[in-house]
């Protein structure tokens, strides 16, 4: 199943291109258009922004799983897989692993672009490993949530709507602006929503700064999400195609 999705990827490289396009535009837009108007303490705005853009690109790639799963359900390809002697939930795990691989490609591309526009990470090897591990956990858990949404959705439009909720989450986080600048009413949401600790952790690790409690918050959040979404998606898939 993983091989099937890698084939899809090599045959349709535009999947990755479109997923990288928006974060690239956002990176350039916030770096050059809005960056001068936004002041952040302790570092330059491009160093503040690049880790946030990494999270945005991985979010976009992970949420594309919603539409991919939904289209598999609609096209009836799953009915053919059911007749084969294989692990029944392999269809889902194939989608998830493929999303994580796409996320890895996006990570490399976005780091390269970040360096081109002035991102200067100061973290050591261990910090980089920690940041990559955090992004892997985030991509893996979010892909399961996306797969669950793809199974719940009855139509492509419905799947797009559900994916949009997930896609919007990094914008209402600390990815683009410091949490302190957000109005108090909204600040509580931005501060405690699950994407913010991921952004804060990745940023701290890549810039070689102290991580604080954000790493534990991120791990607890996304392990909990994974523990709920993965069994639920698998169960729903089995129930639909039993």
């Amino acid at each position, binding site marked *: 199943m993983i091989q099937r999705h890698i084939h899809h990827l090599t045959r349709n490289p535009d999947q990755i291109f479109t997923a990288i396009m928006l974060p690239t535009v956002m990176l350039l837009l916030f770096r050059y258009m809005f960056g001068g108007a936004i*002041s952040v303490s302790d570092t330059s705005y491009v160093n503040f922004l690049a880790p946030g853009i990494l999270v945005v690109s991985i979010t976009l790639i992970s949420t594309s799983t919603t539409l991919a799963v939904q289209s598999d359900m609609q096209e009836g390809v799953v009915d053919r897989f059911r007749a084969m002697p294989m692990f029944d939930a392999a269809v889902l795990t194939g989608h998830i692993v493929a999303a994580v691989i796409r996320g890895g490609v996006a990570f490399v591309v976005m780091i390269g672009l970040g360096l081109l526009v002035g991102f200067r990470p100061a973290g050591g090897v261990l910090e980089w490993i920690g940041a990559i591990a955090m992004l892997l956990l985030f991509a893996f858990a979010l892909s399961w949530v996306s797969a669950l949404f793809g199974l719940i959705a009855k139509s492509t439009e419905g799947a797009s709507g559900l994916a949009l909720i997930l896609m919007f989450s990094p914008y209402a986080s600390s990815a683009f*602006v410091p949490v302190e600048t957000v109005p108090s009413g909204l600040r509580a949401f931005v501060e405690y929503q699950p994407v913010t600790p991921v952004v804060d952790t990745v940023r701290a690790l890549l810039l070689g700064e102290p991580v604080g409690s954000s790493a534990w918050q991120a791990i607890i959040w996304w392990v909990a999400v994974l523990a709920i979404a993965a069994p639920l998606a698998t169960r729903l898939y089995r129930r639909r195609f039993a």
Partner: protein
Amino acid sequence: MTTTYARPAESPPTRLPREGLAESERIRHVLVAPQDRPERATAFSASLTYGWRALQKIKHLPEQLFDVTIFPIMMTVMFTFIFGGAIGGSVSNYVQFLIPGIFVQTLIMITMYTGLTLNKDFSKGVFDRFRSLPVWRPAQLVGALLGDQVRYLLAGTIMLGIGFLLGFRPDGGLIGVAAAFLLLLIFSFSLSWVWTTVSLAVRTEQAAMGVSMFVLMPLTFASNIFVDPQTMPSWLQGAVEVNPVSIVVTAVRELMNGVYSASSIGLVGLCCLVLIASFGPLSMSIYNRKS
């Protein structure tokens, strides 16, 4: 059994048309007596009729208005509450700066729908039927553009309403806002000629939309809608300041703040003249060639 239909008593006997008339004229002469013929529609009335037709489309497809206002509404809310504090120092300060810009962005984005509608009409063959009507040829294009003024008016009103809800309080008062609105309507009318040309030049609706977005997105984002160009790198600042969208935004901001600058309004007027003078005749030549 055959039925014979008598001519109504009040209608005058049909005279045979004079020789030398065109075939179509001879037929018309026989079918409708000269005194019963309606007046030929003037260019203005024909344009208004096609404008009314464009309005009917909004009535039957109100989601086209929803489509083009939902994106600016999302942008307004996101930039105001999430980025506003960081960009403008405080949300209340930033709203005063942002709303005139978003107001311009909304109407500019809607202008492309004129082209898309015309493209759809062409591909469906509606214009083949219009061609046979004895009306001023450009009426279909001018009418569509006039009808869209109502669409701009509706979308602009929605955006201003949201601005007022978010705390936008222009110093220019009602007169300043009305003057800004009028200026923007004139610019939108001028800009819509560009998308009319594009929609007539390309084959599909998707291609027309692709070209429009490809031009509009950089124009609206590489402008002074969201941030003051002074905060941008110098190489970008120059490009932003000559961007026609920035010129319009500056004029609209000034008018809404009660500043009536002849140079700003004049520059917008010049942009409008250039757009109409360039793309008006171009649209008409493509239209005449296609129809």
